[in-house]
Every structure is written in C-alpha cells, then in structure tokens.
C-alpha cells in the first residue's frame, strides 16, 4: 500500500480551502477574546479570511489556465475548472452572507461571533465538496457543510420558529446523510473502491468489479442524500419550514450555498463515477426535475409569506438545474450542460441573495413584515429598493434584462440538445418552459404590490446591506446584459477525472 506523502496533498492547489478552514478554526479561538460589543470585528476578520482564500483561488485559477487540472490529497480531490468556478461562487455567496448579517444580527439581538465562524466552516465544506473526487470526501464535505448550517438555522434562539427550523433540519438532514453513507458503503461494496475514477473503472468492467448491482443501488441512495441537500421533490419538505424559521441571512446563504454544494457533488459523482449507467439515473433525475419544477412553482403561487414563497421558488430552481444534470448524461452535451448548470447556480446565487437582502430590509425586529402585502407602496417610499426588487423578481422569472434569463436560456439550450433521441428530456424541457411561465404569476405579484398598490412600505437599509444590495443588483443586471465573459468562464468549468 502506498503511504501518503506531503507532496500528494498538493498544498498549493488546495490552498483556498485550507486557508478558509484553518482561518475558521483560528477565528473560533480569536472570537473568544473579542468583547460582545465588538463582534463586528469578527465579521471583518471573517471577510479577511474570505479575501485571502479568494486571492489564493485567483492564483490557482491562473495556474489552472496554464497547466490544467491537478489532483490533491492523493487522488481524493481534484482541482479543475468546475471546482474553481464553484469555489468562486461560494466565496462570493459567503461574502454577501456576511454583509447581509452585519446589521441584521444586532438589530435582532442575536449578535454572536459564531455566526461568522460557522459561515466560514460551512463555506469551506462547500469548497471541499466542489473538488471532492472520492466518495468519502463527498461525505466529509457534506457534513462539514451541513452541521454549521443546522446550528445557524437555530441561530435566532430563543425564537421558537428558529429552534424548530434547526431541529427539523437537523433530524431530516441526519436521516438523509444516513442514506448517503449507506449508498457510499454499497458502492464501495460493489466497486471495491470509493475513488470516483475507480468506481467508473469497476463499473465499465476494466477493474475488479465483483458486483455492479450493489453499486447501482448505492448510486440510488447517494442520489437521495444529495437530492435532499438540493431540495428536490420528494426530498424537499423540510425547505419551507426551515427557510421560514431560520434567520433571514442564514436562509439567504443556505438557499444559495447548500444548494450549489449539493449540485457540485451531484454533477461530479454522477458524471464521473456513474456515466456508464446514465440511462438509469438520467431517467430518475429527469422525472425528479419535472416533479420539482411543477411542485415548486405551483405551490409557490398560494404563498403569502415572502420567505416561504422564496423557499418554494428555490425548490423550483433546483428543478431547472436538475434538467441540466439530466441533460449532462450525454457525453456530447456534457460540457454545455455542466457549464449551463454552474452558470445557472451563479445567476441564482446573486439574484436570490439580492432578493433576500430586500426581505431583510423589510423585516421588522420581531421577525414580521415579510408578507407580500408589506411590499405595498414600496415604490413610492423607497423607489430604488423597488427597482432592485423588480430586477430580482424578473431575474427569478427569467425575463430580460436579467441574469436569470441568460441562465435559463442556457439550461434549456443544453436540454434541447440532449433531447436529441430522448423524448423524456424533451418533455421535461417543455415542462420547464411552461412552469417558468407559471412562475411569472407569483414573482410579478411583488412588483405589482410595490408599484400599483397604496401602502406605507417601510424598509431599513443599513450600510452593509446597501452594499450587498448594490452588488447583487449590479451583478444581476450585468450578468443579464453582458453575460459573455462569465459564460466563457463557465465554459471552462469542465469536469476532470482525478489524476
């Protein structure tokens, strides 16, 4: 057996994750010595960590453009374009997540330094997830991603609904993790290895494949575990309760980060380890995608609480990305579908964080003020806020000029290409287009409220929130009108076999 060596870690390539995780540990200790009135220091220190990680990521991206993908931690992780792009998305989301919370936490009397350290921990989990090339690392990253989120959901303790959210999320999350581990174990039993590249060899027949059936059952269970993370039907039921109960900045970050993390693993595991059984999981994922889009969009119509509506909306958006995942099983469509998926995740991240920033601005100190009616008359009292919210809603619907339109366009483009010879994907694509038309119904309710109903829309935009809003609105708009450079970046987000 080969013993691991220092060189095999490939410290340089995994530096962004290591910096962030290490800094999170250190910050946990440092935070102990920061007095309760100065917790914003912790926030800025956390931003510093994100920045350092971002710089390392930048160097790594430059290096990648010159020498291509490399593996790290033995062959258990791989740094490729896919990982780098998503890691960038995660860092950006975490940065916005901190900006959203900076004024929110003291306003709600729940300012504790742990928010920022836990955020760093979960972000490092997501980043690890993006580069995982081994099922064990997938599980490790998933737990590193999830556990801090369980705590963060209950961060508004002693508010009861927040505690309830944490409890539900934890119980169901543990349940789903159980399926994932079981799936991994069965896959190991079937393929004799947990390396993704090893699994594919075993399944294709090149390696020692004692039992492909076990591996395929394992694959199904892995799909369950990851489907839970991305809130796909029928593993979605925790989403509305948890999103509604958790403190809003946590919801914002969770809806973006955890989902993208789940998709990172889903894409890599299924495209690298199980391409040979694509006709099987392709069908399952396509059906799940259809159910997810239908349920998310239809149920969102009857919601009056904006946080809950955005929760169903986030379920629906998971469905759109799943369409891309299902399409990616065709090798000739894979590059397009993968880049469409990651680009969609980027557009969804900036748009949704922006939408939640507005919800935070409207939320009153007692947690009320997030009903649809509370947006009435906002155009008169806060015109810029209303414009930004309109932009976000347009983007979520997929109407130009906004990021969401470009994202949807490319997902459907990939799906249409994949539907060559696959009527199921064609059907799912049509369902996707139809449901996105339905979605206009509930998204556009908010602009209608803001512009055409009288009311005293109140909002409280503090500086950090304002910066976050400006950034997300600008990004949503720019991604919508000049998407080309980002699309080119996404086009480089290709999956690579480890090694």
């Amino acid at each position: 057996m080969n013993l691991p060596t220092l060189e095999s870690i490939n410290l340089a390539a995994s530096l962004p994750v290591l910096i962030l995780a290490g800094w999170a540990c250190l910050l946990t200790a440092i935070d102990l010595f920061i007095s309760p009135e100065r917790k914003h220091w912790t926030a800025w220190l956390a931003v510093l960590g994100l920045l350092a990680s971002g710089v390392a990521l930048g160097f790594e991206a430059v290096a990648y453009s010159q020498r291509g993908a490399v593996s790290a931690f033995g062959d258990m992780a791989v740094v490729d374009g896919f990982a780098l792009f998503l890691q960038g998305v995660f860092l950006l989301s975490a940065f916005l997540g901190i900006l959203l919370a900076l004024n929110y936490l003291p306003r709600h009397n729940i300012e504790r330094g742990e928010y920022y350290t836990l955020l760093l921990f979960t972000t490092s989990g997501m980043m690890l997830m993006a580069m995982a090339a081994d099922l064990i690392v997938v599980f490790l990253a998933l737990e590193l991603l999830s556990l801090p989120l369980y705590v963060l959901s209950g961060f508004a303790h002693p508010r009861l609904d927040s505690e309830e959210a944490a409890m539900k999320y934890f119980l169901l999350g543990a349940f789903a993790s159980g399926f994932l581990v079981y799936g991994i174990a069965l896959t190991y039993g079937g393929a004799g290895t947990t390396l993704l590249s090893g699994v594919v060899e075993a399944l294709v027949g090149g390696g020692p494949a004692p039992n492909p059936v076990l591996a395929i059952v394992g694959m199904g269970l892995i799909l369950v575990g990851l489907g839970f993370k991305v809130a796909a039907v029928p593993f979605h039921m925790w989403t509305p309760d948890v999103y509604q109960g958790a403190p809003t900045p946590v919801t914002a970050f969770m809806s973006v980060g955890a989902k993208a993390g789940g998709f990172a693993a889903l894409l890599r595991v299924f495209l690298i380890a199980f391409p040979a059984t694509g006709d099987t999981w392709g069908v399952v994922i396509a059906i799940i995608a259809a159910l997810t889009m239908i349920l998310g969009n239809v149920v969102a119509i009857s919601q009056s609480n904006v946080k809950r509506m955005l929760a169903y909306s986030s379920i629906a958006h998971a469905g759109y990305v799943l369409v891309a995942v299902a399409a990616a099983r065709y090798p000739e469509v894979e590059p397009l579908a993968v880049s469409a998926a990651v680009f969609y995740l980027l557009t969804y991240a900036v748009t949704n964080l922006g939408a939640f920033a507005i919800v935070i601005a409207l939320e009153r100190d007692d947690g009320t003020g997030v009903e649809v009616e509370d947006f009435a008359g906002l155009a008169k009292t806060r015109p810029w806020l209303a414009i930004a919210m309109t932009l976000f809603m347009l983007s979520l619907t997929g109407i130009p000029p906004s990021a969401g339109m470009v994202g949807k366009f490319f997902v459907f483009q990939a799906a249409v290409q994949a539907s060559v010879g696959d009527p199921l994907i064609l059907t799912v694509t049509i369902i996707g287009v139809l449901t996105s038309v339905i979605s206009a119904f509930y998204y556009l309710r908010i602009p209608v409220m803001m512009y055409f109903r009288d009311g005293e829309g109140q909002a409280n935009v503090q500086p950090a929130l304002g910066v976050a809003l400006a950034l997300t609105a600008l990004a949503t708009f720019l991604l919508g009108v000049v998407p080309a450079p980002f699309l080119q970046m996404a086009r480089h987000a290709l999956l690579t076999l480890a090694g």
Partner: protein
Amino acid sequence: MAYEQYIAIGILIVFSTILALIVVFASRILGPRRPSPKKLVPYESGMTPIGPAMRRLPIKFYLVAVLFILFDVEVIFLLPYAVIVRRLGLYGLIAAGVFVVILTIGLLYEWKKGALEWE
C-alpha cells in the same frame, strides 16, 4: 452472477434468527410461570427501585457526555496512529498535529464558554 459468496452469510442470518426464536419461545413454553408482584418488579442491581425510571437529568450531563465522546474519539484516532507512527513519518506527524490542534481549539472554546464549569 457472483451471488454465491453471499450464500454463507444468508444461511448464517436465517439460522441465527431461528435459533434465537427457539430459545425465546422454548423458555416461554417450557418454563413454569408463577408471577408475583415482587417478581415483576424491574431488576435494579438488587436494590429496591426508587421512583420512575424516566427521570429528567440536568442538561449538563449531556454536555459532559458529548465532550467525553469527543476526546474519546481523539484517543481512538491517535491509538492506531501511534502503532505506525514511524512508517508515516513527517506526513503522519503533521496530520496528527493538525488533528490535535483543531481539538485543542475546541477545548479552548468550550473552556471559555464555560461548558466545563458545573455551576
């Protein structure tokens, strides 16, 4: 297909289940039963039981239990490391060092948060 290798474990499962059932049922059916109140009392180390078994414990016990598990796991991880410490060389030392440092930060955290104070 290569399912034959599972036959042995299948036979084992079936037979152990049957055997367990036989043992349980045999004592039920064959053994005489003359219950009395004293006999039906739950067994509690030979002492007379006091109060209901489901009692609320201070949450601190759970905290301590969790902390115990944490450091228990630390030991479990360090023991196998100790066995092959020489073969792993510098790499192993650094890995174990990182592991211990992380746990130490955890210890520092719970210490400062007062989790180790009883009251």
